[in-house]
């Protein structure tokens, strides 16, 4: 395909398809063809996007195209380089699965609502593609805002609920605060280089005075960090992702937050060359904090979609651990190690887009059929929704970093980068690497515990509500959409040695080295981290061995005596008869030990109220309430909000509502600007 059409032509095709999809969705109220087009076009666009990004990644070439706008300072410049292509690839695979899924998911929406959802879905896809490829400061900021705006409209889709409206506003506010920081950062770079083109920014940061450069890095880290959902600027994420329609949650958690990662990589590795040690250290610390706190908060969630949203914070943290190590290695002058860490981070970015998309689609199917996000009302769904359960299980194994799926590969690469870090420098910073590794291990193990809870409570045992008992399997297209991502999780896990070379073009561009030949053994089966003696791993061989060994337990245990009676009976439960759903362990109970162990963080509060008539030992009703302290909201954002309100109250004095006063302000501002302009 690359031979017939250039990557940039394919990219234009994808953009045009998303545009057509948006147009078609406006016609969706008129009948079936509009509906078909509004999801069929993005599907085509996604396929074109996959082709465009793959051909760019394989060729390692940079394509530039665009048009002048006629407006000063703004050019519609598109640049598809390997880094953009990787993010486009993740976006396109996910968009492909979500578009297929949406056929079924959106089928029973009324026409007007369908049209709105499909329109903003297409606009979001269009703007996301442009965010990853725009190469002019103002063009980038415009599509960045279009992205935020369309995401806001999608988050607020169910705007008749108070919770949804609040989440939408919070998202918009934080997103704008982040954009303001980005604007300052970009303008500073533009002033320093005298150009607004990203190509001119290449390594421009290195020429800035040190203090200014450091300030800019911090601005960009926070500005992009808001979108990525790093702690402490994460609070919009667990609010906004759950309330959006589930196909949109998948897109937001899978790829929208990755625009922040894209921005950080673009700025730190492209615009800046070698960043100071403190920056890498800061990114590493932010990464560890986000990963650990993200998973700890996820453990306490019983809202399936909020739980997944917190896991997005955790995974962004894991990605940042890789990026931070890469920055540090570069600062210490080890481009090969930096490339290893960068590959780990980007591999995890791709993986997270896939398995988180899959999990949200699974949660969406549950919400669609069982009409609840609360895990305590689910249970037993594996019987009535077998495929959804299987897909969710695959996603859960992948996100827990268990072999042989894709999450394990990127976590393994991250561990190897951290291990190599100890020898990379003699400064005290090196102790950070193994400690980070230990905390990453804690994070991964807690994530596994959390997904045992999520899957076990939601899908296994007896249904805890009538709705869960009567749930039906998701429709064919929804299963197909999840199936695409299940296949992708397997492909990226088992085919690790074919995926790693894709990153060569990116490390070549960012760091000037290619590492895939050093990362893959000669026979192409195993990944190996630096040198013949280093650690090796082969997910494909592991999977093959698991299959090959399978007859052993089967023969030993079950083939021994064919006549061994296999009966189905009631659960024994230590002899207690009459097991009901009320006897089952709940999600709250499951996470109780961790709530006690980490009580310093959660500061849990609980209240038990028992009503009784005769004696307290025979209660007639018990009410139990347990909640954990939202530390960041309480300690950081509440004072901030109070401060802003205080300042606003003072400022009200100059905003008296008198038109004369306003005219005077405008006049004074005009004079001052004119004076300033003439003087300059």
């Amino acid at each position: 395909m690359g031979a017939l059409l250039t990557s940039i032509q394919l990219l234009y095709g994808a953009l045009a398809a998303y545009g057509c999809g948006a147009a078609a969705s406006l016609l969706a109220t008129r009948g079936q063809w509009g509906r078909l087009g509004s999801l069929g076009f993005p599907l085509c666009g996604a396929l074109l996007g996959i082709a465009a990004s793959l051909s760019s990644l394989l060729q390692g070439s940079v394509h530039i195209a665009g048009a002048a706008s006629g407006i000063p300072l703004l050019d519609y410049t598109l640049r598809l380089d390997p880094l953009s292509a990787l993010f486009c690839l993740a976006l396109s695979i996910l968009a492909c699965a979500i578009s297929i899924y949406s056929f079924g998911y959106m089928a029973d929406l009324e026409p007007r609502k369908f049209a709105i959802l499909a329109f903003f879905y297409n606009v979001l896809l269009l703007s996301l593609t442009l965010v990853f490829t725009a190469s002019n400061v103002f063009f980038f900021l415009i599509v960045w805002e279009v992205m935020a705006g369309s995401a806001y409209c999608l988050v607020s889709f169910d705007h008749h609920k108070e919770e949804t409206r609040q989440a939408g506003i919070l998202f918009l506010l934080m997103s704008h605060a982040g954009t303001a920081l980005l604007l300052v950062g970009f303008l500073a770079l533009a002033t320093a280089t005298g150009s607004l083109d990203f190509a001119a920014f290449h390594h421009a940061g290195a020429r800035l005075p040190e203090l200014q450069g450091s300030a800019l890095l911090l601005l960009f880290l926070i500005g992009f960090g808001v979108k990525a959902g790093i702690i402490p600027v994460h609070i919009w994420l667990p609010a906004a992702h759950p309330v959006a329609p589930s196909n949109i949650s998948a897109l937001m958690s899978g790829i929208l937050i990755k625009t922040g990662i894209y921005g950080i990589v673009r700025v730190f590795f492209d615009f800046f060359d070698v960043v100071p040690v403190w920056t890498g250290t800061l990114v590493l610390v932010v990464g560890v904090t986000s990963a650990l706190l993200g998973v700890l908060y996820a453990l306490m969630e019983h809202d399936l979609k909020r739980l997944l949203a917190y896991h997005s914070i955790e995974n962004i943290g894991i990605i940042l651990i890789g990026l931070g190590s890469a920055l540090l290695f570069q600062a210490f002058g080890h481009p090969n190690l930096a490339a290893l860490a960068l590959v780990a981070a980007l591999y995890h970015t791709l993986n997270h887009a896939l398995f988180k998309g899959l999990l949200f689609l699974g949660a969406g199917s549950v919400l669609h059929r069982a009409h609840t996000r609360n895990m305590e009302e689910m249970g037993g769904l594996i019987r009535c929704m077998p495929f959804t359960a299987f897909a969710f299980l695959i996603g859960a194994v992948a996100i827990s970093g268990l072999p042989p799926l894709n999450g394990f590969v990127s976590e393994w690469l991250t561990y190897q980068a951290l291990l190599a870090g100890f020898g990379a420098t003699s400064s005290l910073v090196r102790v950070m690497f193994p400690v980070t590794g230990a905390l990453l291990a804690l994070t991964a193990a807690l994530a596994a515990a959390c997904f045992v809870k999520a899957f076990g409570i939601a899908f296994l045992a007896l249904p805890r509500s009538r709705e869960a008992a009567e749930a039906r399997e998701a429709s064919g297209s929804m299963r197909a959409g999840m199936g695409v991502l299940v296949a992708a999780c397997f492909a990226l896990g088992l085919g690790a040695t074919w995926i790693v070379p894709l990153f060569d073009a990116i490390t070549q561009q960012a760091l000037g080295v290619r590492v895939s030949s050093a990362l893959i053994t000669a026979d192409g089966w195993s990944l190996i981290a630096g040198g013949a003696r280093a650690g090796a791993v082969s997910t494909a061989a592991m999977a093959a061995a698991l299959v090959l060994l399978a007859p052993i337990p089967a023969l030993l245990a079950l083939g021994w005596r064919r006549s061994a009676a296999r009966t189905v009976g009631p659960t024994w439960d230590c002899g207690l008869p009459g097991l009901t759903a009320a006897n089952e362990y709940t999600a709250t109970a499951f996470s109780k030990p961790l709530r006690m162990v980490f009580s310093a963080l959660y500061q849990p509060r609980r209240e038990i109220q028992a009503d009784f008539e005769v004696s307290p030992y025979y209660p007639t009703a018990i009410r139990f309430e347990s909640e954990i302290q939202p530390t960041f909201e309480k300690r950081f954002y509440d004072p901030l909000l109070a401060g802003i309100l205080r300042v606003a109250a003072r400022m009200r004095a100059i905003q008296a509502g008198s038109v004369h006063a306003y005219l005077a302000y405008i006049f004074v501002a005009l004079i001052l600007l004119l004076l300033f302009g003439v003087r300059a």
Partner: protein
Amino acid sequence: MTAWLFPALTQMALIMAIAPLTGGVMKTLKARLQTRRGPGVLQPYRDLYKLVRKGMVRPDTASWLFPAAPYVLFLSALLAGLMIPMVAADAPLSLFGGVLAVVYLLGLGRFFLALGGLDTGSSFGGLGSSREMTISALAEPAMMLAIFTVAIGVGSTNLSVVAHTALGQSWRFFAPSQMLAFAALLIVLIAETGRIPVDNPATHLELTMIHEAMILEYSGPYLALIEWGAWIKQLILMTLLVNTFFPFGLSPGWAVGSGLLVSLAWYLLKLLLLSGVIVVIETTNAKMRLFRVPELLSVAFVLGALALVSTFLFAA
């Protein structure tokens, strides 16, 4: 082909054969320390034989995950067992994955077993799953720090390289980093294999069970697979401990000859000694309350961190 087939098959047979024996030896040693006769070291084999011939009951609340869990547990443990150096420094499948793969494969088995516990709907199953996942999560950072200490010293996570390096140089167990890492891993071993003071493998008192609660509903051949898988996991962790820190007698390769037999004898002796140590710890301690366990594990974490720092301080 034969170059790896012989080691792989031999090691597989050895693991499956020795794992129940280790369990039996520990039970007997413990009984002797408590001045009981004990059931004899061969009892686990008899138990397995008995279990595979029995019928099994599957709870009507359970799904396909319930019977799948024992398979995943057994298979992942067996595969992990092929990745560690046992009687020879060359692990049969060392290119399939190093120590990280071993840890994560054991994690895969635990993940499915915990789901199996929840699948029955019994509150004991959920209780066991919840506690097992909590304790293993808290043990993980200590384990990883100790592993990192060893891996940094060698420059590799490949266990065969670790074993060869340990064989090549003089024995340096008394280096602070090694001793501290050993202590950390010993605590992790006790926690991961569910032994006193963390969990009591002999208890069936409902509220104190952890591992046993999770597998309460399993019977017959499924139970046999789980027991066997758990013994294999215990053997893997013990083997890691003895061969990494006490590499005596380890044959470098798989050349058939008396070298392998001597190596096997050494290996069994080391296992016996380590079993003795674990049994003494079990006999002289009482089981801890569940919420004291995190404290023990933080001791392991601190030991691991100290091991790491001493690598940094006493770098040769």
